[in-house]
């Protein structure tokens, strides 16, 4: 299905302005693009984990969503969505519902990688016909930028701050996309905001319209948490992809497909230097952190290339 940018952007907005997300927030961009991936005429129910997006997009009595929406708690968005989907199946079977609905769950890395992990794994394993979109901003942003398992190594977060005896987060970023692929669900993808959004759109569309569970991991930069001037978001996303920090790929029925190979793979500093959370990596004596980060990215990239068709 060819991507027609103008047609897609002309669709009526299903995530409207007036929400309370920060200026320049990656989560807002994610939601708009996610909802654009729905075919016109298809209804949706959005389930949302507690976090920046939830408190900002449904603050009583203001909902930024044109579709039905449910938030129940922080760690259970997937189970809640499973309940909505089960109800849909039951009511459709009884002839009480006629229309087509799609079930989209969205949560930050906190509610997805960590506290929501069990719920996500269970729902994916059960095979609900749903899509989980993670807006990955690499920390618990809503509570004030605490580290999550998604925070990259060396990033400074409020519970893993850089200091005189610390260089930020000690552990490497958990690879949730790989964990989801290991669940053997029909479709898994990694994407972010590049160019005309064709990559995001095609992946989101495929995820929504593949029967069964699907998972889409979206790198969604956060100007406050990553410490950069808000307008730099597109540069950060571009650098994440060109340095192979955040490869764009899909796993379709267990087979790996790379979406983009950088013509010239840039050094990881090009990504890190744009963000204040890595500032300490550039102090004298800390060159080893950048080398370690480069080594880590290189290893992961090689492993991914080996898996891809």
């Amino acid at each position: 299905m060819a991507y027609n940018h103008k047609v897609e952007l002309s669709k009526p907005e299903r995530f409207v302005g007036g929400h309370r997300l920060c200026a320049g927030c990656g989560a807002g961009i994610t939601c708009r693009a996610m909802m654009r991936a729905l075919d016109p005429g298809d209804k949706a129910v959005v389930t949302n984990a507690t976090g920046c997006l939830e408190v900002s997009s449904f603050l009583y009595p203001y909902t930024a969503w044109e579709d039905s929406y449910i938030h129940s708690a922080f760690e259970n968005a997937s189970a809640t969505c499973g309940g909505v989907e089960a109800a849909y199946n039951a009511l459709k079977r009884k002839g009480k519902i006629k229309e087509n609905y799609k079930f989209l769950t969205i949560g930050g890395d906190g509610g997805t990688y960590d506290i929501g992990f069990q719920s996500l794994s269970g729902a994916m394993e059960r095979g609900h016909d749903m899509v989980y979109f993670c807006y990955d901003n690499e920390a618990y942003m809503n509570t004030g930028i605490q580290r999550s398992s998604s925070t990259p190594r060396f990033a400074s977060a409020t519970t893993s701050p850089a200091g005189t005896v610390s260089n930020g987060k000690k552990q490497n970023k958990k690879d949730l996309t790989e964990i989801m692929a290991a669940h053997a669900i029909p479709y898994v993808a990694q994407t972010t905001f590049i160019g005309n959004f064709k990559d995001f759109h095609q992946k989101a569309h495929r995820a929504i319209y593949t029967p069964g569970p699907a998972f889409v991991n979206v790198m969604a930069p956060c100007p406050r948490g990553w410490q950069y001037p808000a307008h730099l978001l597109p540069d950060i996303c571009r650098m994440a992809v060109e340095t192979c920090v955040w490869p764009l790929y899909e796993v379709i029925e267990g087979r790996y497909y790379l979406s983009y190979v950088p013509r010239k793979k840039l050094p990881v500093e090009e990504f890190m230097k744009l963000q204040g959370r890595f500032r300490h990596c550039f102090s004298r004596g800390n060159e080893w952190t950048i080398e370690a980060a480069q080594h880590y990215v290189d290893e992961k990239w090689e492993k991914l290339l080996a898996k891809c068709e």
Partner: protein
Amino acid sequence: MSIRDRLSGNEAIAYAMRQINPDVFAAFPITPSTEIPQYFAQYVADGKVDTEYVTVESEHSSMSTCIGAAAAGARAVTATSSAGLAFMYEVLYVAASSRLPITLACVNRTLTGPININNDHSDSMGARDTGWIQIYAENNQEAYDNYLQAMRISETPDVRLPIMICQDGFITSHAVENILLEEDDAVKAFVGEWDPEHALIGRDHPLAVGPYDTCPYCMEHNVQQAEAMKNAKRAVLEVAADFERTFGRHYGFFESYRMEDAEVALVLIGSTAGTAKACVEKLRAEGVKAGLIKVRVFRPFPFEEIAEALSGVKAVAVMDKSEGYSGAGGPLFAEVRSACYDLKDRPEMIDVVFGLAGRDCAVGDIERVYRHLLKIVTTGETGPRYIHMGQRTSEKEVL
């Protein structure tokens, strides 16, 4: 026409669920409620129900699944006990504050550790502030009858609160007793259908559930919920009246057994009532004016009604089958005593915490309580207000 059968409490609940044919069943096992999802799974496997059976990976997820399903306009049910109920603790509040009718079969098992699988009420008592309607059963018949009434109470438009139907683990859930079952068509007609005005799906407008409520709004929503719990009192009696008209069995907030002229009385919840009734008969034969109140509806708490029932009684022992660790008595004692505060003729009232973690309570044990109450009446000395019964001890205890 009722059908005579012999079922355990768990079988009876599963049977009722089959007759109701809910839309979604979120299943996770925990002793002693495990049999309920198992029996129901067989109904599903044999095509006897149309239910979407969701085998979740934890109890937090089973309640979350019910929340999603109920918000979507479907009848959602689950069953649990003890730590399972505790694991759902956070979302029990959400189910109530989101005003979703969900029915939970609670097979009471102790929560206060160390881990033990036997009966007491600490699990559902621990959830008494969650905003759920709580109804308790003495035996399998009551468990079945309460379950048939649950959804209509819960779905009442000015109530819209989730409901837990409780029975004593192992004592009621696993013991096979005689029971009167109702016919499938009669049950379907009594329970009816649920078609809420608003739902996430299938309506001509969207629904948004679960907002972030800033301070100017949150207390108002809480007050709405408090009003709904008050309305539940009326709904309980309305549904009970219709139940009696339809099936012939009477239910209220509590059962008053031989209370007309009682001078000494017990107030308690659950299967111990059966034992206590046997003791009351024994004492009555001796001319003792003994009576018993078996509380059925704990939430909403029948404040005025219990006080009225105890007015004029000389000495009351509230029997708590859960230890709330308040240092001053169990949860039933606190609420009953508070209800009686306004009485001109207040009975002497003590709390007996008993039967924890399935510690057996026989007719003889109940008799000791009544004899103690009689001593209170004759001597005029109430003694300690908060005592335990049934534990081994090296000190001299009151009971």
